């Protein structure tokens, strides 16, 4: 079942009680978004799967400390971002060695465009754009990439991203501006 990103947060009392069925609902509702963020961020399917599982295990173990200051999605994404950062640190060399190979995979994300354009040329151009954006995203700093993915893939609001990364909204906007500007320059070349 695909869950929309607009799905509201699970009531906090459900988390606080730690009831098994309720936490399974949390997993069911948020697993696609957590996996999506980790996959787009790390570009390693296996790592994304493992870290998604780890994210929910950690959340489950820490569920009693969840005070509801943020939404469940923000809380889970914060754990996911930390796991992704730890993973990069622990496997930095391997990550960058594999980046060149995996960037080929993500270049094909353009093929997943549900483009209803009639013109094959327009479709090809759209795919090229997506490929160009991915190339820029891969070259961004980790922080900029994370902000960019949370904004344009997870469609999070600036305030929510600030909550996930524990940054000020102005800082998030500054990171996002640099990323967007770089992407626009590159995507402009692809047009």
């Amino acid at each position, binding site marked *: 079942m*695909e869950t929309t990103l607009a799905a509201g947060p699970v009531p906090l009392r459900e988390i606080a009680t730690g009831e*098994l069925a309720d*936490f*399974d609902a949390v*997993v*069911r509702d948020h*697993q*696609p978004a957590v*996996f*999506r963020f980790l*996959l*787009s961020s790390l570009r390693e*399917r296996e790592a*994304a*799967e493992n870290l*998604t*599982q780890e994210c*929910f*295990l950690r959340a*489950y*173990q820490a569920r009693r400390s969840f005070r509801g200051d943020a939404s469940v999605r923000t809380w889970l994404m914060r754990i996911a971002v930390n796991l992704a950062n730890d993973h990069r640190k622990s496997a930095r060399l391997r990550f960058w060695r594999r980046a060149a190979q995996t960037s080929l995979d*993500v270049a*094909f*994300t*353009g*093929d*997943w*465009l*549900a483009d209803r354009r009639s013109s094959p040329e327009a479709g090809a151009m*759209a795919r090229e*754009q*997506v490929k*160009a*954006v*991915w190339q820029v*995203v891969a070259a961004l700093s980790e922080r900029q990439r994370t902000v960019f*993915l949370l*904004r*344009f*893939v997870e*469609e999070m609001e*600036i305030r929510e991203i600030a909550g996930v990364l524990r940054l000020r909204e102005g800082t*998030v*906007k500054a990171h*996002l*501006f640099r*990323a*967007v*500007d770089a*992407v*626009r320059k590159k*995507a402009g070349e*692809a047009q």
Partner: protein
Amino acid sequence: MSGHLSSIEISKWLAGMRASDAERHLAECSGCAAKLERAGEPLVRFGAATRAWCAAQTPAPRPEPIACAARRKRRFVAMRIALAAAAALMVAAPLYRQHQRALEVARQDEALLEQVQAEVSRSAPEPMQPLEKLVAWNPPSAHSGSSQ
């Protein structure tokens, strides 16, 4: 705002830095509004394509509830701790025995040294010690020697 939106201002807008004068201008200028929409298209396409790509990669739902996985992980961690403790014991036990042996040897050496010291400190060999009791060995002092 004096003119149309610059490229930087469009990037700022897309990044959420939305100035009120830019907002006013966009409401009035269809050219800039269209320019902004075109600028945002690659970002929207990127998001949509990435979501679709990720959805195709999404693993099947987990067959076991998260609590079971958590318990399994706890057991796994406990097993690892137990194995590490056993390994540490296997390494430590011979070292401890070796240390104990070294202490025992040191104790024996100490006892031997004390024995030797006792032997050496005697004024006469053991078989001659009864004779020693018979002889009063009082070396003459310098004062008594000069008076004779």
